[in-house]
């Protein structure tokens, strides 16, 4: 077993990145995420990664671009306004197919908003955010342990598909301390023949670009990355089920709210209400078929999505369910974490 520690989500994420062979980190302070760069600054003398506190998120994301294209294992982390600022670079990275990891420790928006936890950036994370047709692989951890586990997974998926991967976390997971089991450090040997490391006689020159000025070329590029997205959708959908086998109500949530909803399910069951939780772990690719399967079962009466936003993932559930069953929503905004009781009450309100 790995080393057991009591750590903050942000620090655990930084430590996990180090243990996954991090070679470059570029970031800019923003609450509630700054502990990542602070932790890396503290650990810097013990490791070999390159660490730069950039002058802005715009610079950070473009440093990620450059370092990833140079073949390094790289990451940046930020919180909502910072990730908004990165969007141009994210779109370029997606088109240039550069493996890298982003973490968004989401806070309440829109605008400068609040620094308290929120899930208001779901759309931005899974529907693009930047311009053009692209997707990040998006993992939604719900504990400090998953900050660690998903970090390593994110680096692996990024390399496997040459695609940026994002951890869609939130301020409370970033700030809270929990028990974590840390994985063994792994040495990282990049195998990236496409990287711009200097042209040797044995290969053609490597170009990293997102410019395809001829429409035909641009369409071909789009088809390539869309084919990749299909491959990812086939292979990488992850989810968790809790007491769904006989459930008549399927409650759904990602990230922090999924923990709260487990409690909701237990409370409901105590009252004799047959409820189960279906939690997408990858929110892109989205477990569409799994939702459709539930919708096809006679015993399932309705779905309820609980989120810390004004209703975002609920739209993907509705698309998956495709009108077969009602899909309801309950949410809090502004950095307020819903209680199990209020979610349960919302569900009961739809029972009649």
């Amino acid at each position: 077993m790995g080393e057991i520690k009591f750590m903050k989500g942000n620090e655990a994420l930084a430590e996990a990145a180090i243990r996954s062979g991090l070679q470059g980190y570029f970031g800019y302070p923003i609450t509630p995420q700054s502990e990542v760069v602070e932790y890396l600054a503290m650990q810097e003398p013990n490791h070999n990664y390159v660490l730069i506190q950039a002058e802005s998120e715009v610079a950070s994301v473009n440093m990620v671009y450059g370092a990833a294209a140079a073949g390094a294992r790289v990451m940046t982390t930020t919180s909502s306004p910072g990730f908004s600022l990165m969007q141009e670079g994210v779109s370029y990275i997606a088109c240039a197919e550069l493996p890298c990891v982003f973490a968004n420790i989401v806070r309440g928006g829109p605008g400068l908003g609040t620094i308290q936890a929120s899930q208001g950036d779901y759309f931005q994370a899974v529907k693009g955010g930047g311009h053009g047709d692209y997707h990040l692989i998006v993992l939604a951890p719900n504990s400090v342990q998953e900050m660690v586990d998903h970090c390593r997974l994110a680096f692996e998926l990024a390399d496997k598909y040459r695609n940026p991967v994002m951890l869609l976390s939130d301020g409370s997971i970033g700030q809270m301390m929990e028990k974590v089991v840390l994985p063994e450090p792994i040495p990282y040997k990049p195998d990236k023949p496409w990287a711009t490391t200097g042209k040797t006689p044995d290969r053609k020159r490597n170009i990293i670009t997102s410019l395809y000025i001829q429409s035909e070329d641009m369409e071909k590029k789009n088809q390539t990355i869309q084919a990749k997205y299909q491959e990812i959708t086939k292979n990488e959908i992850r989810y968790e089920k809790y007491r769904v086998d006989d459930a008549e109500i399927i409650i759904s949530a990602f990230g922090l709210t999924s923990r709260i909803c487990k409690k909701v399910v237990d409370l409901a069951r105590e009252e004799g209400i047959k409820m189960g939780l279906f939690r997408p772990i990858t929110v892109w690719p989205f477990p569409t078929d799994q939702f459709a399967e539930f919708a096809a079962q006679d015993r399932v009466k309705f779905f309820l999505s609980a989120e810390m936003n004004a209703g975002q993932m609920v739209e993907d559930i509705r698309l998956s369910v495709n009108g077969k069953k009602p899909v309801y929503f309950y949410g809090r905004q502004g950095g307020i974490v819903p209680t199990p009781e209020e979610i349960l009450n919302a569900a009961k309100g739809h029972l009649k």
Partner: protein
Amino acid sequence: MKEGYEVVYKRPKTLLDKRMHYCPGCFHATIHKLLMEIVEEMGIQEKTVGVCPVGCSVFAYDYMDIDMQEAAHGRAAAVATAIKRMLPDRYVFSYQGDGDLAAIGTAETIHACNRGEKFTFIFINNGIYGMTGGQMAPTTLEGQKTTTSPYGRNVQKLGMPLKMAEMVSQLAGVAYAERVSCNTPANTRKAKKALKKAFEIQGKGLGTTFIEVASNCPSGWKCTPVESLDWLKNKVYPYFPLGVFKDVPAVKEEV
């Protein structure tokens, strides 16, 4: 008022009677007061529009009884530019920290100065990111410890602290650039004079005015307010000297 007493100090009406969220001893509070005194003395409350971007002073609009806009981190100069261009007869100022003005917003700062945008920059240089909990700023001194330079700022990797007042004074659009501080009553009076002068030059439309305050951050520097004054005197002023770096109106008068 009581017989035999005279008023030696009162809060300017333009400064709202509210408990400030600033840490004890922080110059942000002092500068707020000076600024609002000037607005009151010049009688320009109706003609003043302020811009406060993100940083500890993002809540400045809670204290200043004038119209204000909040701007995204680093973008105050762009926002202020547009306000001033739309309302050229108003007094417009941006109130920015060092992270804001000299890191994420450097491009906006330089270009507003270069265009000679006729608003006043009030630049609170405390050498640290106060609001986010004490990270390194572009103005953090060599060797200074912050949460992201826990072993001291290594200038080999991170470069020397940026001297913004000196830098912008090189730009043609800038009419006035001065660095002031508030560590003593005398310096505080000078700071007020500088701010007032900047506003007057703005009123005459002579170009960009830029007042840098060599400021403190007892919380981020992890010291007492009094110790922060020592740090200013011993470490900050030697690198960031107080004084006037550009004074176009004065030069013009001499000619």
